[in-house]
């Protein structure tokens, strides 16, 4: 496992990196090279690849073997936050494949920065989980292929905490008083409070958000902090309970002496599901090769290898079975998207006003 706390470390580092990108980039729009726009992308070799991804997010052997098989060079550059990626794309930088989250796919597409492609041209198209058929951010299945997904639930230590009920209200469990962490993520924090209160996960209603704020303030009394660093907090014993993404608990269990003590539950009020995807920007110079590469990554055998390497579940056949194998000692970590049916929920913030209301609400919780 090389990806122990990618999000957390990078989030902290992101502020420092900000200067390097320059604030000026955020609204300066240059003429974009729209090479992949408006043509049907065939999955065939049309040049070398330049991937733009999180660091340490893909088994490097897969790149190497792809390059050997198709006789192309596969190069990779990394971003350490999604805003930085957007800025690069807006400024016209050319990449063949990028790894945005669902919300960023939606945003990039609204800005006309993503190429459309026909998913059915991929040999492994049928491997993709039906959960990803016409999602809100891609109703026509033409903007992205799911790469990894993560459910949000509660991780806890069975030797310290008892009486867990499979509910978000478990965050108030007195056994975890002062040793419980809420994710330092405005969507995850407000989201679970919304679910407790029976509101829509993505409610933009100010009164409902006010109620959820009170719920969070009550949970804060029981908390030791807000953090996305669940792996470190649990491994170092500072946390006995943590709102957490399931993939991170795999990494926790790999790092501790008694993995059986670390359990994970999803909650009956609702299970938020997040997804990172592979998409082709319109600036891609080799969109055809990029199609081949996506197909290569969701190949059952390759995706299984990738899961073994990075520890994150992938919603494709092969990877699913491999992830189940990885967590067979703690099957609750393995969340079957299809089985979740109605309780699986996606965060959706496509309205600037609602987003501001949400972030202000979370700031009030943290500042108070």
């Amino acid at each position: 496992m090389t990806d122990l706390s990618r999000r957390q470390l990078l989030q902290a580092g992101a502020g420092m990196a900000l200067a390097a990108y320059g604030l000026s980039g955020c609204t300066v729009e240059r003429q974009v090279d729209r090479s992949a726009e408006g043509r049907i992308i065939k999955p065939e070799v049309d040049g070398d690849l330049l991937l733009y991804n999180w660091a340490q997010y893909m088994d490097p052997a897969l790149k190497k073997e792809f390059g050997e098989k198709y006789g192309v060079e596969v190069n990779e550059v990394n971003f350490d936050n999604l805003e930085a990626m957007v800025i690069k794309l807006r400024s016209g930088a050319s990449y063949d494949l990028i790894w945005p989250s669902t919300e960023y796919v939606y945003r990039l597409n609204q800005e006309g920065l993503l190429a459309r492609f026909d998913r059915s041209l991929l040999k492994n198209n049928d491997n993709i989980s039906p959960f990803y058929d016409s999602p809100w951010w891609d109703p026509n299945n033409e903007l992205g292929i799911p790469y990894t997904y993560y459910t949000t639930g509660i991780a806890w230590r069975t030797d310290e905490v008892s009486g867990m009920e499979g509910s978000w209200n478990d965050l108030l469990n007195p056994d975890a008083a002062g040793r419980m962490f809420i994710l330092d993520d405005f969507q995850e924090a407000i989201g679970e409070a919304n679910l407790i209160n029976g509101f829509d996960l993505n409610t933009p209603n100010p009164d409902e958000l006010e109620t959820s704020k009170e719920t969070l303030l009550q949970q804060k009394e029981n908390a030791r902090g807000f953090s996305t660093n669940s792996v470190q907090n649990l491994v170092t014993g500072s946390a006995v309970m943590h709102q957490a993404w399931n993939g991170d608990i795999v990494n926790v269990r790999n790092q501790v002496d008694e993995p059986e003590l670390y359990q994970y539950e999803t909650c009956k009020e609702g299970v938020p599901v997040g997804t990172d995807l592979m998409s082709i920007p319109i600036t891609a110079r080799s969109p055809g090769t990029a199609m081949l590469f996506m197909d290569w990554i969701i190949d059952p055998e390759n995706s299984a290898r990738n899961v073994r390497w990075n520890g994150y579940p992938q919603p494709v056949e092969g990877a699913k079975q491999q992830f189940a194998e990885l967590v067979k000692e703690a099957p609750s970590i393995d969340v079957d998207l299809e089985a979740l049916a109605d309780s699986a929920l996606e965060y959706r913030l496509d309205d600037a006003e609602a987003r501001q209301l949400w972030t202000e609400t979370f700031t009030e919780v943290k500042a108070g």
Partner: protein
Amino acid sequence: MTAGGFWNRFLIPGAAWLLLLFLVPLVFVLALSFGYVDDLGRAVYATDFDNYADAFDPTYFPVLLRSVGFALATTVLCLLIGYPVAYYIARFGGRYRNVLIVLLVLPFFVNYLVRTYAWVALLADEGLVNNAIVDLGIVNEPIQMINTPWAVIGGLTYGYLVFMILPVYGSLERLDKSVIEAGKDLYGTRLQTFLHVTLPQTKQGILAGSVLVFLPAVGDFVAAQLLGGPDTYMVGNLIQDQFFAANNWPFGAALTVVMMLFLSIWMIAYLRSAARDVRGAAI
């Protein structure tokens, strides 16, 4: 060409550097702070004052107060720890002076973020320190050290200590030893000599060190993010969240401008005090 004209040319690289990498970005921050976010989440330049109105929302007062409080505590701690260290090295370091200073500065070449992470591993409930004191029987249960305000102040103190030691050391090193001897000759006790001779003479070093510690500590976000608890949210965290979580760059820019103005007040006060002392010394 005059000699002055020749030497002035050496200012060009530095001036260009400041202009391009400091002033120009600063102008962008200022321009952005009057902007807004469109429906696609893009920052748009405008001439709104809304962000400034929001910046003075009472919600944020506790955050600002907390940041100033933490930074003041950090400055005092840095002074209490740093002054004796600088004093010892300057007066008794002898030929090892420079070696000692290098040893002090060396850890600060490691990235601040990484060093702060190290503290998390050290001070966690089942970290090295707690395991050691539990094993030694000093305490029965681990003590919660991180995720507290104290941990944040400790992290800030550790992070910025060297900025206090160096200027204080500089002023102590320049101090004429015969002045101290004169103080003792005039029947001053050690304490009296220190309070009436050494301390006033090193006032500028202390002030410079305090400013160098206080200003970055107020805006720091790393210590609170990694070592903080539920009640340690600082201005730096607020600003960082605007850029990377809330996606509200204009508001983040406005907060930055407000904070820079606030910090400038302290900076100007310091510069005036320094200038006054220089004039005083000249007379």
